[in-house]
């Protein structure tokens, strides 16, 4: 069974700031694509159980979900939660025509996930001087039964939120790390803080 390795206050502050910088880079990537301002939240860093993670991610029915695993110096999974609301406005900004087909919607969701989650992970990894490779995102439907079987038993969750200013669209990106990766990241943060 895995054990939560808590971050101390300085490590948490540092990780939050590094994520904030990574989010800025991610938001800029999307803003360039849709030529619209993106509001970004202050990152939240929490340790949660699978049940808490399930509630955190899937509290609303009105959302799409994607997941992407990443490998490298640190390993884990990025789960993106995208609101259904406002997605058609984003699609227009991405030059899709109404009405959107099912394939269009899936393509947009995967594209948004890849841009924001990819840029976030790349920004975080580069600042920590860690190598990571992000796999392509896949759509998935959350299921409480199989969710408990995932390996994210008490792991660190890094949550960021993007909101598109001119629409009701919002998206959350949640990073889940395994314990070995968390230990590696803590060590790297300590080196940064020295």
């Amino acid at each position, binding site marked *: 069974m895995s054990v939560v390795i808590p971050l101390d206050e*300085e490590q948490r*502050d*540092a990780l939050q700031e590094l994520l*904030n910088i990574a*989010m800025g880079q991610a*938001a800029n990537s999307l803003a360039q694509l849709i030529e619209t*301002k993106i509001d*970004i939240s*202050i990152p939240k860093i929490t340790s949660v159980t699978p049940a808490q993670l399930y509630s955190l991610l899937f509290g609303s029915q009105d959302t799409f979900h994607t997941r992407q695993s990443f490998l490298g110096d640190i390993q884990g999974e990025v789960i993106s939660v995208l609101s259904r609301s406002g997605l058609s406005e984003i699609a227009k900004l991405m030059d899709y025509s109404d009405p959107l087909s099912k394939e269009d919607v899936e393509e947009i969701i995967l594209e948004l996930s890849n841009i924001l989650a990819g840029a976030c992970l790349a920004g975080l990894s580069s600042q920590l001087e860690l190598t990571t490779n992000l796999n392509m995102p896949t759509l998935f439907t959350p299921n409480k039964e199989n969710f408990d079987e995932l390996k994210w038993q008490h792991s660190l969750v890094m949550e960021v939120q993007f909101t598109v200013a001119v629409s009701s669209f919002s998206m959350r990106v949640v990073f889940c790390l395994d314990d070995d990766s968390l230990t590696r990241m803590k060590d790297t943060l300590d080196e940064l803080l020295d």
Partner: protein
Amino acid sequence: MALSVLVADDSKLSRRSVKKSLPPELDYDISEATNGQEAIDFLAENTFDLVLLDLTMPEVDGVDVLEYLSKREECFPNVIVISADFQPEIQRIVLSLGAQRFIRKPLDKEELAMTMFELGYL
């Protein structure tokens, strides 16, 4: 005479990075605000030669601080915004509110030095 500087950022790591990046040619009298409201409180009670301001802070953010400065009657201090959010729209907003310069995070000390040079500090 030391340059009075207010560093406003909710991240300790970032405040430390800003302080370490200040050009060594000058002496500094540094005050630190850990959020936007603290920054406003400092600015209400003190005069600073230079304000180094983050944007993304809880509750009272950097834009709120700039709006506070733009509404008061006192002289607007030199403000360099140092932000992870560097979208063109946010840069336009902060510069229109009176900030002199915009620098993106992660902070590059050469860029800070160049910016301070352009503003006449070096």
